[in-house]
């Protein structure tokens, strides 16, 4: 990986930024975990890379924007993908809105995230690790400016599909929603009051099946709460 610069050291992957085949690119390299058995580790790594590639393509087919893939190097466990320029994580944007106390944009943004997740689930794509840092946003019309952009002018770009799978079960989709809700609430102070807007976006998009998923989601939430009450 020549002329790439480390930008993020995650739990399972290192992210580098550079130029690949002449394009601005991100290299996502998964690395070995010391506590895992080497052969188990290499098959897990391969599974993650496979899952990520499949979901990136499946999203595109479903009309969801994801980074383009330029190359996969299995010898170095690396995916070279499009660097989504002028993007921000949903995490940072939510914090921007929260700081300026912009509740209406925050709610609208949650609604749009709900629509995108609804589209994922409509197409049986379970993300597996939905958080606000695994969602990027770019501006639809003026790619340079995200400042003061209305949520309806954003393109929502989900990323980090290493734990994803293709699955139609309402239970799995419910878990996906629950994971996102927990992640949002633990990261953002205003998330709890805005999550209903996420859910209405989700339902608006996923007309055929969201009811069953939301039912499961309520059950999962209840189970979660009981677990907290009895302290496990």
């Amino acid at each position, binding site marked *: 990986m020549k002329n790439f610069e480390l930008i993020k050291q995650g739990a399972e992957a290192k992210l580098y930024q550079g130029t690949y*085949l002449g394009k601005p690119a991100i290299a996502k390299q998964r690395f070995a975990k010391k506590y895992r058995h080497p052969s188990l580790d290499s098959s897990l790594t391969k599974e993650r890379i496979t899952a990520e590639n499949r979901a990136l*393509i499946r999203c*595109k087919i479903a*009309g969801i924007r994801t980074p383009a893939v330029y190359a*996969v*190097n299995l010898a170095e466990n690396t995916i070279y993908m*499009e660097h989504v320029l002028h993007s921000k994580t949903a995490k940072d944007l939510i914090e921007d809105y929260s700081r300026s106390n912009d509740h209406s944009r925050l709610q609208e943004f949650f609604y749009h995230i709900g629509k995108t997740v609804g589209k994922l689930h409509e197409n049986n794509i379970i993300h597996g690790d939905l958080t606000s840092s695994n969602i990027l946003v770019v501006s639809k019309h003026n790619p340079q400016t995200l400042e003061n952009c209305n949520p309806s002018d954003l*393109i929502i770009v989900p990323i980090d599909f290493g734990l994803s799978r293709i699955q139609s079960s309402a239970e799995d989709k419910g878990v996906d929603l629950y994971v996102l809700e927990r992640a949002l609430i633990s990261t953002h102070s205003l998330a709890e009051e805005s999550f209903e807007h996420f859910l209405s976006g989700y339902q608006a998009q996923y007309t055929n099946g969201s009811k069953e998923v939301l039912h499961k989601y309520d059950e999962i939430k209840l189970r979660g709460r009981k677990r907290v009450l009895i302290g496990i």
Partner: protein
Amino acid sequence: MDLDPETNTKLSIKLFTQVKNAKEIKEQLIQGEFKCSMIKPSLILDPFQIAVAANKALLNEKLTTKTVYTEILFNLSPTKNISKSLQTFGIDEKDDALLVVTLCKDTENEEADFLKQIDAVEAPIEKLSDYTDINLIKKIYKINDKESSVTPILDSIVSRIATKDFLSL
């Protein structure tokens, strides 16, 4: 055009138009006389599409086809059927335009001699768009309007090429 630095290889793509002897050329190609891939320009949207396919051919430890040049054609194709891939992306006897793709080591600088045998007019690569058949491309790569309304077609194409080994199409 540069590929992954690890490959130590340069890629060259030339566009030939008004080709008069495609039949002969194809015969010699099949006999292995030419060290190159010959590709139908109608199925190529941008040289970058070929760069991604060639890069993948060089990075893979094992080739699926016989040579790196047939591998480029195979990689370009969304199907895993080898002969169908070569047929679709390779040239026909009747073609009057073709792309010639050659690879050479960074350190070398050989001008492919066999190019003289192509009875044609070389055109600047910018002319490629005159030959691209976007509808045919969308059909072959199965890109529907839902996809192309949000994702640039070139991104859709190269992503399919780069991830071909992982897709169960």
